[in-house]
């Protein structure tokens, strides 16, 4: 297929596709899908990859891909800066803090000649290295950095439409375009083959993330029956908290709820809240300030040992 000279078919493939370019591509001259993106006149001269200096940056309002982001007052972000941040510093910072070093890989003692060039010993009492805990200052106040949403649909192995539906569902509740996820390997007793589309995932940051958080804490979680909260045992020890919602819980999102007919089936999903907190306890304190409830006892801490 590949030839060093640019052939006619290659140059056609590199052409940007518009609804009017169907004829040039050798397709029938009409598009059966109703187009939804005719927003602005596109200056096609500026899109050519041959003259990169003519291309407009994505922040340029003349670029057809330009999208305004700061379109409303971000009350969640303002709440963090005006109310939460100073309290978190007061809660976390202690007098005379010092860096607590994590568990690191160790040198071999050299008692055997085979120790030469051997990779370092694993840390004491741990399989992996752990992070240092640095003193708490005004420059490292914990903050929510991103929310990863992951939706793996088991039934997609039999019916690929389920994977597409989960993708649209995530887009509906977050307003951000998700990416499909594919099975990486063959798993014979799950009847999953490598390359199957199995669901969708998305990473929320900034305004969409804050919008999603406030929908979750103001509308969805309070309406789930007998919802106890996120487990206090959740967390990856470095300040990231994980939780999940069932297919029934997803129905409480207003975008899904107002179009019940469209959603005969909903899909549960996992959330990973990435924070800049150094420990899970700090991350939980941070998330509580956003109105996320927690329940149960914490890892390694017995409730009777806590003095209030």
């Amino acid at each position: 297929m590949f030839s060093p000279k640019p052939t006619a078919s290659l140059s056609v493939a590199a052409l940007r596709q518009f609804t009017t370019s169907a004829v040039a591509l050798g397709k029938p001259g009409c598009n059966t899908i109703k187009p939804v993106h005719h927003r602005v006149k596109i200056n096609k001269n500026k899109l050519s990859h041959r003259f990169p200096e003519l291309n407009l940056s994505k922040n340029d309002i003349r670029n057809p891909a330009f999208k305004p982001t700061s379109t409303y007052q971000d009350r969640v972000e303002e709440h963090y800066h005006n109310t939460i941040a100073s309290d978190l510093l007061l809660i976390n910072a202690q007098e005379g803090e010092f860096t607590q070093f994590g568990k690191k890989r160790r040198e071999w003692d050299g008692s055997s000649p085979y120790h030469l060039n051997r990779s370092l010993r694993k840390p004491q009492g741990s399989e992996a290295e752990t992070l240092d805990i640095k003193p708490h200052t005004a420059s490292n106040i914990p903050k929510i950095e991103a929310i990863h949403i992951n939706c793996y649909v088991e039934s997609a192995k039999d019916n690929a439409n389920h994977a597409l539906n989960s993708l649209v569902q995530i887009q509906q509740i977050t307003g951000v375009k998700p990416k499909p996820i594919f099975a990486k390997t063959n798993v014979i007793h799950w009847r999953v083959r490598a390359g199957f589309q199995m669901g969708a995932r998305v990473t929320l940051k900034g305004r969409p993330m804050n919008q999603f958080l406030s929908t979750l804490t103001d509308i969805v979680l309070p309406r789930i029956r007998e919802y106890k909260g996120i487990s206090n045992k959740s967390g990856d020890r470095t300040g990231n908290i994980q939780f999940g919602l069932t297919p029934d819980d997803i129905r409480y999102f207003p975008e899904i709820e107002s179009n019940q007919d469209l959603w005969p089936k909903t899909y549960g999903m996992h959330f990973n809240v990435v924070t800049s907190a150094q420990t899970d306890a700090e991350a939980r304190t941070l998330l509580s300030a956003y109105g996320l409830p927690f329940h149960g006892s914490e890892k390694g801490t017995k409730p009777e040992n806590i003095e209030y």
Partner: protein
Amino acid sequence: MASRGLLTFQRCLSTSPATTSATSAPAVPLSTIRSTLLLTRTPVVTPELTPFETHFYNYQSELERRLMWTFPQYFYYKKGSLSERRFVKAQKGPVSKQPGVFFKKGIPDIVHNRERREKQEVIIPKSEEDESMSDFNRAVVPNSRTTKADEDNDIKSLERALHRSLYLIVKENGSWKLPSFAVEDSSNLHRAAESGLRSLGGEQINTWTVARSPAAVLKYQNGKLVAPETQGEGLQREYVIKSRILSGLFAPEKATEFAWLNREEIEQKVSPEYFQATEFLFSKV
């Protein structure tokens, strides 16, 4: 790993007087220590926008609507259904370009039934609205940002200045200051502050102590404020404990004068020296 997590957790909950009053604990007699309460009512509504911000957000959101993709009607209304017919009927539809006609608002630029020069107006049909979407389609009318307490300038009300942080200050011996209480024997600073607040303002108050460690220290020598780094004999210390009011009322039985004020109002009430020492505790929002 678990032990490290526990250590951090215990540090977070650290209560021993040795950490709160630092190195001075053994040398300083308890009678010279007082616990001061910084009781906050956090903002209830969003901060007020400047005219520039209002215009900026308005412009950006109109621009976003203008650049939005066309409403995917086929996704929300099944083809050939009654609801689709109702929806299509309710839409105004763009004005198309005609030869020899003068268009006052500019020549229409229509592609696939969408006017590209303007944002798309999607009209929800009336009958749909009456049946199922009444709640969804109802116009959102926000409550007023100013309350009756604002109009009456009632500084004892918690319902004033909703967009600002308010702080409780009381009048003691003729001067306004944060409420402060003596520390009883074997009591912690935050417990002294919380119980003192209830003895002064009644039990009908629900507060949350933000942290056990004090947010600030105020030092007095011969009844006058001195710099916080001052050391020596005869110093009176006030440790400021930060707390938030969650619900309830501060309703003192005795004729204690009190006020819920924001930063600028506190500056007018308290003495200049006191404000200079406590200024950093009060939020500008």
